[in-house]
C-alpha cells in the first residue's frame, strides 16, 4: 500500500526501476538448470467487464499443478497477472511478466488483449499459448511464437452445423426455420460474419428467417425476444454470453414461448451459473461448443480436481482450455528439456498430446500455430448436469427433443 500519495517523479521512477531491474538476474540464475520449474505468466481479465470469465479461467489454472504433477510433467511456477479487461494494461502486464522472468505466457480470453500480448511475446521471442480467443485473425498474422489451442469462429461454426446434422439424423426430424440471435460483440460478430460462408457447405434443413443482433451490455432483452417470437420460427439459433442467456431464458418464460429447440453456438447456455440460477428452467438448450470429452481419462481427473477445489461447480470451457494451455506448456518443457524460449517454441510446434481433455484427436499445431484438429461437442442441459450428445465418440446421452415447455416446469 502506498504510504503517501505525493510521489515525486524521480522517486517513482527509482521505485519502479528497482522492482523492474532486479528480476532478470533471477531468471539467469534459474534458467540454467533444466529441472528448475518453468516460469509461466498467466494473463487473464480478472477485473473489469470480463472479470467473471477471467476469474473462471483462473480456476483452471489453480487446479492444474497437482494434475500435471500426477502426469509426471515438470513443475511450473505460475505468475498471475490481471489484464483488467483492458488492452493497454494487458500489454504492460505482459512486458512486466517477461521482465520478471516469465519464460512462457498464457492468456488472455479476449481477442484484443490477446493480440496486444501476442506482439510482446513475438517481439521478445517468448512463446504465448492462447487459452481462449476465437478471432481468426490472430493466427493469420505470421507469428512464430504464438500458439492457439482453441477453435476459431469458422471452426466453431463448421462443427456446430456438423453436429446439428448428426443430431437431426438421430432424432429423425429437424426445425424448418430458425431465428438467429447474436450478441454484437467481438465473438458474436465474428460468428455472424462466418455463418453465411459456412452454412451453405452443410445441407442444413432450416432457413434463417430473421437475424437479431443485440447489444452486449443490454439490460433488457424483452424486445429482442418479442421480435424473435413474432418471427414464428420453429427454433432459436444463438450466439450469446452468460448474462444475456439468462435474460433471454427469462423472457422466453414470461412471454410464454417455448421454441422447438434452443441451439446455442457460444457460451452462456451450458455454463454453471446458468444451470444454478435458472434451475428447472435451464433444462433443454443444446450448446454446440468447444468442450471436454467426458469419456477421456484426463477429463475425469480434471473434473475430480475441480470438484475437490470448488465443490458444486461444473467443468466449463474456461477451465478446460486454460488447463490445456498449461498442459501444453508443461509438455513442451518436458520435451524441450530447456527453458530457452526458442527451444520451448520449437517443442510446442511439435506438440502431439492425445491424452487431453477437450473433444477431438488431441493437441497439435499447424504451421500457423493453430490447433486445427479441435472438435466441438453438442451438449444438452439435463437436470442441472450436462449431457454430451455429439460427436459420436464423445457422446454419453441421447437428445431430448423437442425441449419441454417452460409452462409445465414450475
Amino acid at each position, binding site marked *: 500500500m502506498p504510504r503517501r500519495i505525493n510521489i515525486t517523479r524521480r522517486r517513482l521512477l527509482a521505485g519502479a526501476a528497482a522492482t523492474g531491474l532486479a528480476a532478470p538476474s533471477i531468471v539467469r540464475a534459474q534458467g540454467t538448470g533444466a529441472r528448475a520449474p518453468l516460469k509461466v505468466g498467466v494473463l487473464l481479465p480478472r477485473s473489469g467487464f470480463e472479470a467473471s470469465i477471467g476469474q473462471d479461467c483462473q480456476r483452471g489454472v489453480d487446479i492444474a499443478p497437482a494434475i500435471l504433477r500426477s502426469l509426471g510433467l515438470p513443475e511450473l511456477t505460475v505468475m498471475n497477472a490481471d489484464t483488467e479487461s483492458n488492452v493497454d494494461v494487458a500489454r504492460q502486464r505482459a512486458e512486466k511478466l517477461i521482465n520478471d522472468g516469465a519464460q512462457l505466457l498464457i492468456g488472455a480470453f479476449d481477442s484484443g488483449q490477446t493480440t496486444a500480448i501476442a506482439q510482446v511475446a513475438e517481439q521478445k521471442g517468448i512463446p504465448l499459448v492462447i487459452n481462449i480467443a476465437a478471432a481468426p485473425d490472430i493466427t493469420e498474422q505470421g507469428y512464430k511464437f504464438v500458439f492457439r489451442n482453441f477453435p476459431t469462429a469458422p471452426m466453431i461454426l463448421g462443427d456446430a452445423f456438423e453436429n446439428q446434422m448428426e443430431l437431426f439424423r438421430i432424432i429423425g426430424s429437424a426445425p424448418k426455420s430458425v431465428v438467429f440471435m447474436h450478441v454484437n460483440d*467481438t465473438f458474436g460478430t465474428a460468428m455472424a460474419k462466418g455463418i453465411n460462408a459456412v452454412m451453405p457447405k452443410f445441407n442444413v434443413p432450416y432457413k434463417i428467417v430473421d437475424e437479431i443482433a443485440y447489444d452486449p451490455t443490454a439490460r433488457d432483452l424483452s424486445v429482442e425476444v418479442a421480435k424473435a417470437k413474432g418471427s414464428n420460427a420453429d427454433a432459436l439459433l444463438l450466439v450469446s454470453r452468460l448474462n444475456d442467456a439468462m435474460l433471454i431464458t427469462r423472457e422466453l418464460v414470461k412471454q410464454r414461448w417455448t421454441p422447438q429447440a434452443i441451439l446455442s453456438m457460444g457460451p452462456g447456455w451450458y455454463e454453471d451459473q446458468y444451470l444454478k440460477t435458472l434451475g428447472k428452467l435451464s433444462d433443454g438448450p443444446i450448446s454446440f461448443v468447444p468442450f471436454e470429452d467426458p469419456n477421456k481419462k484426463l477429463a475425469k481427473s480434471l473434473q475430480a480436481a475441480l470438484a475437490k477445489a470448488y465443490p458444486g461447480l461444473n467443468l466449463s470451457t474456461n477451465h478446460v482450455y486454460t488447463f490445456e494451455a498449461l498442459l501444453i506448456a508443461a509438455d513442451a518443457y518436458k520435451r524441450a528439456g530447456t527453458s530457452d524460449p526458442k527451444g520451448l517454441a520449437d517443442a510446442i510446434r511439435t506438440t502431439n498430446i492425445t491424452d487431453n481433455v477437450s473433444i477431438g484427436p488431441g493437441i497439435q499445431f499447424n504451421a500457423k500455430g493453430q490447433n486445427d484438429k479441435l472438435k466441438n461437442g453438442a451438449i444438452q442441459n439435463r437436470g442441472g448436469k450436462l449431457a454430451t450428445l455429439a460427436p459420436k465418440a464423445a457422446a454419453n446421452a441421447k437428445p431430448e427433443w423437442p425441449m419441454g415447455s417452460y409452462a409445465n416446469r414450475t
Partner: protein
Amino acid sequence: MAAKTSASFVDPFIRIAVSLFEDVSRQTIALLGILLASLLIVPWLVNDYLLTVLIVVLYFAFTGQAWNIMMGFAGQLSLGHAIYVGLGAYIAAVLFARFGIAPWIGFLAVIPVAAACGATIGFLAFRFRVAGVYFAILTIAFAEFARIGFDHLDYVNASAGLFLPVAQYARNDLWHLRGNPTMFYYVILAAAAFAFVVCRALLKSRIGYFWLAIREDEQAARAAGIDTFRYKMAAVMISAVITSFAGVFYAFFYNNLFPEQVFNISRSIEIILGPIIGGIGTLFGPILGAFVLTGLAELLNAAMAAIGFDLPGAKQVFYGICLLLVVVALPEGVWPWLARRIGVSESRQ
C-alpha cells in the same frame, strides 16, 4: 538582397522560437532541459517493461495536453475525446491494412476528418448554446454514436475487430510505424514534446489570450470584442486534430482495434484524469498528471505483487482512494502545488 530575403523568411520563426522561452524563469528552463534530457536517454537506462510504461505515460501526457486546449485554455469540458482517438486510429489503420498507406500519410487523411468531427460537435453545441454539463454530455453522446456506429460498420470489421498485419521487429520502419518499443517511445516522446511546444505557443499567442478570456467569463469576453464562437470552434478543432494523432499511434502500437475498446467512455475519462490531477490549464500539469497516474498504477501493482496480495479489483480500489485524496487535498492539481514548493513560477493560467 538574397541574404536579406532569407533572413526575413527565417526571422518570424526565430522570433517565435525566442518568444516561446521569453518570460520563462531560469528554473523552468532548467527543469525542462533536465526532463527532456532524461527522457531522451531513458531507452538506454531502463528495460522494455519500464519503457512500455513510459510510452503509456507519454501517450497520456500527449492526449492530456490536447484535451487541455479545450478545457484548460478555452473552458469547454469535453468528456468524449475518445471519439477523436478512435477516428484517428481507425482511419489510419484501415488505410494501412487495406491500401498499404503509411500512417504519416494516413494522418493527413485523419486531420480533416477529426477537424470536421470537432467542428460538427462544436457548431451544434455553440450555436445552440449547449454549455457546461450539457456540453459534456453532448460530447459523450457523440462518442457513443461513434462506438455504436463502428460496432456496425462492416468495412472496418464492425465489433469483430480490426487487426493490423504483424509488426516486423527485425528492423524499425519509422515510416510505417513498425518496430520495437524504443522506436514507439521516441515517436510518442516527439509527439508529446511537440504538443507541449504547440500548447505553449498557442497559450502565449493572441488566440491563447482569447481562450483564457472565454474560459474566465464568456460574456465579458464578448464585451471585449472576442468572437467567442469562432475561437471556441478553433479550440475544439485544434484539440480534435492533435488528439487524433494519439489514435494513429494507438492503432499501430497495439495492432488491433475494437470499437468497444477505443470509443469507450472509460477511454475519454483516462484522457482527462491526467490534466485534472496534474493541474488544469497549466502546461506541465498534463505531463505530471500522466506520470503520477500511470506511475501510481504500476506502483500499486508492484507493491501488491511484493506482498503477494493477488486480489482482483484491490488495485483499482487503492487507485480510486489515491485519486480521491489528491483531488481533496490539491484542488488545483499537483503541478501548481509542486511548482510553489520548488519555486518554479508558472502563472496561474
